[in-house]
């Protein structure tokens, strides 16, 4: 066997007291595809960042083609031939393909850019990938798959010997995925080493030679036998007993509050979704990134349009044109991105709470006293550690999230949708938020919780709706739901 191109030895990475990688070793050989697999937060992106020079390890060493390798910047890594292709493509849509391929490294002749050479060399790389598009056309308007291939062409033009593909198929359809795989296999046969990061089990089993599983920053297992069942791999990924972060589940009534049937989105991010949520029930929505979870709950909350299907609240069909309609009916959402959608972080807590309740206060003069009493009631009621006149930016993530929840709960909503309620929040504060969620249900509210954190969905939900690539893969009762059954549905 040949020597590995890249060796990682005992790589660790800490951010303050938080250790995200613990002594990971990994070899990548030329002409092989290695899958890096793990749950969100397992350390995959940190590890790939270290290989590609965008992060530096706290401990451990790397070698590249037998030489010590410690890139301080992505540029250094690229010069050596290590290229990371991000999930979000980094192309300039208004420029030509050739310009994109050679951006920052234009071929020069006599002090000016040699456009002819640039186009010719770009065309060569495109041909290598079986891409028959003129290198002079602009990137805008190309399919996502082709844009992905142009990113790869860009890497090849830099003589990449190791490619790291971070969820390359997240935005691709079936046929496009096939086309990409064909090129990946071709590159492998040319001796390029490839590190492949994905959540999709099926693809990983088809395209990769080895699977390395990370869990909580540690390398836990390696599978090189393609006959390994998906179930075994998923068990290795999640592989730990759930602990008791969660309060006892509420007991739902039989009264359906929210009934969703045949709901589809105009851009196909979710299709034909049907479920109901009863009073006092917590419905979890699970699925991989890009499965359409956020899009689904945004539509229910009136933030995005729907193309087909119906949303009924206590039997009445709703026509939601914007969030204000949903809020008026009693459906409120705690959005995914706290800092960009949930709060005006530069404004005070009191102001933020008032913003969601202006119609209730409308027509009256909002004196400082009215404002303060209203906001302080909310702050006290939901255990926010802070005062109404503090700026939201001064609070911890957990307290910010409590403010976002508090601003809605002053309205006594019928349906509360929480999208990633504990993203970026430490464990202590999480328990407090789970208590609020469960208490809501106990008061008869219908609750929907969307989360990428499997443990969380399993811990707080009476039932779990699983989405896979926009389709409803199934609804599991909490007694039949576990890591493996949810993951199996999600990776269909």
């Amino acid at each position, binding site marked *: 066997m040949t020597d590995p191109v890249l060796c990682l030895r005992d790589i660790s990475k800490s951010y303050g007291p938080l250790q995200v990688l613990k002594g990971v070793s990994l070899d990548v050989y030329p002409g092989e595809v290695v899958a890096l697999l793990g749950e969100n937060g397992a350390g995959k992106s940190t590890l790939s960042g270290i290989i590609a020079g965008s992060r530096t390890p706290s401990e451990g060493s790397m070698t590249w083609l037998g030489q010590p390798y410690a890139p301080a910047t992505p540029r250094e890594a690229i010069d050596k031939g290590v290229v990371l292709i991000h999930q979000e493509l980094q192309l300039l849509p208004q420029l030509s393909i050739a310009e994109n391929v050679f951006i920052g490294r234009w071929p020069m002749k006599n002090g000016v850019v040699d456009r002819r050479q640039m186009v010719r060399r770009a065309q060569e790389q495109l041909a290598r990938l079986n891409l028959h598009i003129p290198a002079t056309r602009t990137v805008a308007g190309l399919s996502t798959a082709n844009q992905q291939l142009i990113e790869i062409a860009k890497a090849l033009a830099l003589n990449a010997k190791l490619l790291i593909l971070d969820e390359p198929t997240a935005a691709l359809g079936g046929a496009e995925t096939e086309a990409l795989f064909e090129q990946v296999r071709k590159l492998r046969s040319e001796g390029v080493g490839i590190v492949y990061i994905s959540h999709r089990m099926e693809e990983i089993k088809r395209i990769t030679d080895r699977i390395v599983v990370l869990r909580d920053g540690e390398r836990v297992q390696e599978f090189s036998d393609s006959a390994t069942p998906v179930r075994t791999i998923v068990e290795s990924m999640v592989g730990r007993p759930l602990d008791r972060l969660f309060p006892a589940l509420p007991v739902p009534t039989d009264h359906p509050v929210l009934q969703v049937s045949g709901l589809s989105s105009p851009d196909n991010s979710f299709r034909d979704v049907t479920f109901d949520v009863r009073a006092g029930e917590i419905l979890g929505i699970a699925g991989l990134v890009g499965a359409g979870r956020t899009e689904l709950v945004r539509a229910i909350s009136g933030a995005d349009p729907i193309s087909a299907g119906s949303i009924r609240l206590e039997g009445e069909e709703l026509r939601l044109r914007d969030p204000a309609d949903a809020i008026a009916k009693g459906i409120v*959402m705690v*959005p995914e991105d706290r800092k960009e959608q949930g709060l*005006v972080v530069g404004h005070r807590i009191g*102001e933020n709470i008032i*913003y*969601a309740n202006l119609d209730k206060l409308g027509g009256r003069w*909002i004196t400082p006293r009215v404002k*303060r009493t209203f906001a302080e009631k909310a702050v006290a009621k939901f255990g926010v550690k802070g005062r109404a006149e503090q700026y939201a930016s001064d609070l911890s993530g957990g307290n910010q999230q409590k403010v976002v929840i508090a601003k809605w709960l002053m309205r006594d909503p019928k349906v509360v949708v929480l999208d990633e309620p504990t993203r970026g929040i430490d464990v202590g504060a999480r328990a407090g938020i789970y208590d609020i969620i469960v208490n809501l249900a106990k008061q008869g509210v219908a609750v929907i919780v969307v989360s990428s954190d499997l443990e969380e969905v399993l811990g707080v939900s009476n039932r779990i709706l699983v989405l896979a690539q926009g389709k409803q893969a199934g609804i599991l009762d909490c007694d039949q739901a576990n890591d493996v059954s949810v993951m199996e549905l999600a990776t269909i």
Partner: protein
Amino acid sequence: MVALDINEHRLSSGAWLSKVKGAAGPLVGLLALCVFLSLSTDTFLSVRNGLNILDQITVLGIMAVGMTFVILIGGIDLSVGSALALAMMVMGWTANVAGLPLPVAIAFALIASAISGLIVGLLVTQFRVPAFIATLAMMSAARGVANMITDGQQIVGFPDWFMMLAIDRHFGILTATVFLMLAVVLAAWLFLRFRSEGRMLYAVGGNAEVARLAGINVPLVTIAVYVVSAVLAGLAGIVLAARLDSVQPSSGLGYELDTIAAVVIGGTSLSGGAGGIGGTLIGVLIIGVLRNGLNLLNVSPFLQQVIIGIVIVLAVGAETIRRRRA
């Protein structure tokens, strides 16, 4: 109960302190400017000169209120100078060419400016034209219409009572136009601080997506703000007409920049969501006092422009540095 009262007292004094802090920089600048001019000229520090300054800032003051609303929601309005000219010409034509009574002409003038604001608001919200471009286009178009009304000619001679609005000092102190400006400023201040509709402007400017998800009708707020800005520019045009006793289509050229400068000097953030009328009033006063004082010091008008440019940079630069440190 007693404990609660003490608590409230402490909170309200804290809030008061931070309220002043927001406009503290510009206020210190204004006071320093006044002290300097009082010492360096004999004429600055007098009731008469003070009243002069108030007369001189009425047009700018009224326009700056509308501009504060626009900048608070994260927008910009370059069309206010042209909206002012449009209102003036509509008023002059309706009164002196069509022969309708002046109050009717004033109403028409305000409607004309409101329409220009409505078009801007619709362009920004319905057609997603950036505010800078939409108001730049309106700046050109409204100016063109103002010129077309009289083919570029001025109209002179209005009833005496109209001219007296800007001359006659009631109670021996304030003219009707200064009263009008103060009323506009006070109403805007109350509106922004204490009405839910006023708070909506802060939410929209702070983060439009947060505001939308909180159930605020962002497009409606945006349209209303551009209409109000244009109507206040029209109102300022009527005040200017009273001061000049004439209307001409070239009035208000470049006023949009003075107005933006006053709002920005007053500490309202160009990125939206922070600031207020108090700061704007101080900004307007700084520009008014500076112009007045430089005239008293016989500084050439060309040098005055340079100095005002420097003041804008100093005010905004100091504010940015202060915020970064905080």
